């Protein structure tokens, strides 16, 4: 029973991760899906590649010390499905990124949300999730009309 309940709690997270990505490695083996970390900094490189796009970020703390962060994304395969291009994130721009921290490596995140300096956002999987819920509402409406 406990196992089933745990599964019910964890599976939506996995399905969300999996529905959008899960390519050459396990998400949960590398990242902690239950935690989120937010980092602000300047993009030094965005690589729009498979199996995972990568962003490299310099984050400067109040003492002026620079910490280098690596942010892993879904692959180019499925980022391009939702309209991303190699120019979606530009070197030199200031961004605030939120993601799941790595179990094993410090200063490494799996992308959840990125806010550009102008306030526009890139959010992981949002379009698909919205479409799924809209489809479900439509299905419920059709069901109710048939009653």
């Amino acid at each position, binding site marked *: 029973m406990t196992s089933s309940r745990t599964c019910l709690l964890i599976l939506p997270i996995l399905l*969300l991760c999996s529905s959008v990505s899960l390519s050459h490695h396990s998400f949960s*083996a590398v990242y902690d899906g239950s935690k989120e970390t937010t980092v602000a900094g300047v993009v030094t490189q965005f690589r729009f590649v498979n199996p995972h796009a990568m962003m490299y970020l310099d984050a400067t703390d109040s003492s002026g010390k620079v910490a280098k962060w690596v942010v892993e994304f879904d692959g180019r395969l499925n980022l391009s499905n939702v309209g991303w291009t190699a120019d979606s994130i530009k070197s030199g721009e200031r961004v605030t990124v939120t993601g799941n921290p790595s179990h094993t490596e410090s200063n490494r995140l799996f992308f959840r949300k990125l806010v550009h300096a102008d306030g526009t956002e890139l959010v992981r999987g949002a379009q698909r999730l919205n479409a799924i819920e809209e489809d479900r509402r439509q299905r419920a409406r059709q*069901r*109710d009309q048939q009653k």
Partner: protein
Amino acid sequence: MSHLKQQSTLAIFVLLGLLTATANAQSSRTKLDGMWSDPPATAVGTFCFFSCTDLGLDRLNKLLDDSANDARPAMQLIAQAKTVEGDYIRGLFTPEALKHFPLDPLKDPGYLRCEPWGLARQMFAPHQFEMRQNGRDRIDLRYGEWAARRTIYMDGRKLPANIKPSKMGYSIGRWDGETLIIETSAIEANIFESLAVGGNTGGGTLHSDQLRIVERYTRSSDGKTLQLTATLEDPVTFRGPLVLKKTWSWAPDQKITPYDSCERPAESKKDAKP
């Protein structure tokens, strides 16, 4: 004279029949051709993003049709149906398969060494899937994930008895009306996984080189989706046939891009084989 006329009419009908049959065969041969990708953004499409079973789909549809669940997020209902599906799939595992279950995802060669998947995982890979008739006797399959390729021999040959197993196995195909049927054997022992049994969280097990797979591909009547029904049989791994389904959407504008940057995890680099 009348007899000659009858014979001529018969010959014309036979010729027309042959031409129609040839045209239909040609149409079948290219009907599935083209680029396919992620399934429709629906609860059912998402449920079968990697693979699904009829049992799981039935449970999901019941949950979606129950108005008591209208306030619950779709992903939660999908997860509930996946739990039921997982119990069913685990129940098909032999004691040998259960010995290896669940595999440690940190020891997955795909993760450790960027080693491409075997067929049991590759055929359910997400994203792009391209099918192309290559001449009369071959079909080429390409997958976005791992930029993997397969060749299906359509010339009526039999599955060879003694062939060295490989990751993708040896595949022969035939048409049954507008359904493409592919039979594959000589598949190397490798990993089988399903999200329903916790795939990618260590939900996989090992299958043996006795795995045989029959895939059936059909295009939907509206042309918008491609459906796969795959039957996996492996007496070492499964107590009986495991039937898994998957759906892709028609995606003519998509491309398969190079798989050129597979990064080995830092913590595994010193121990991993090159």
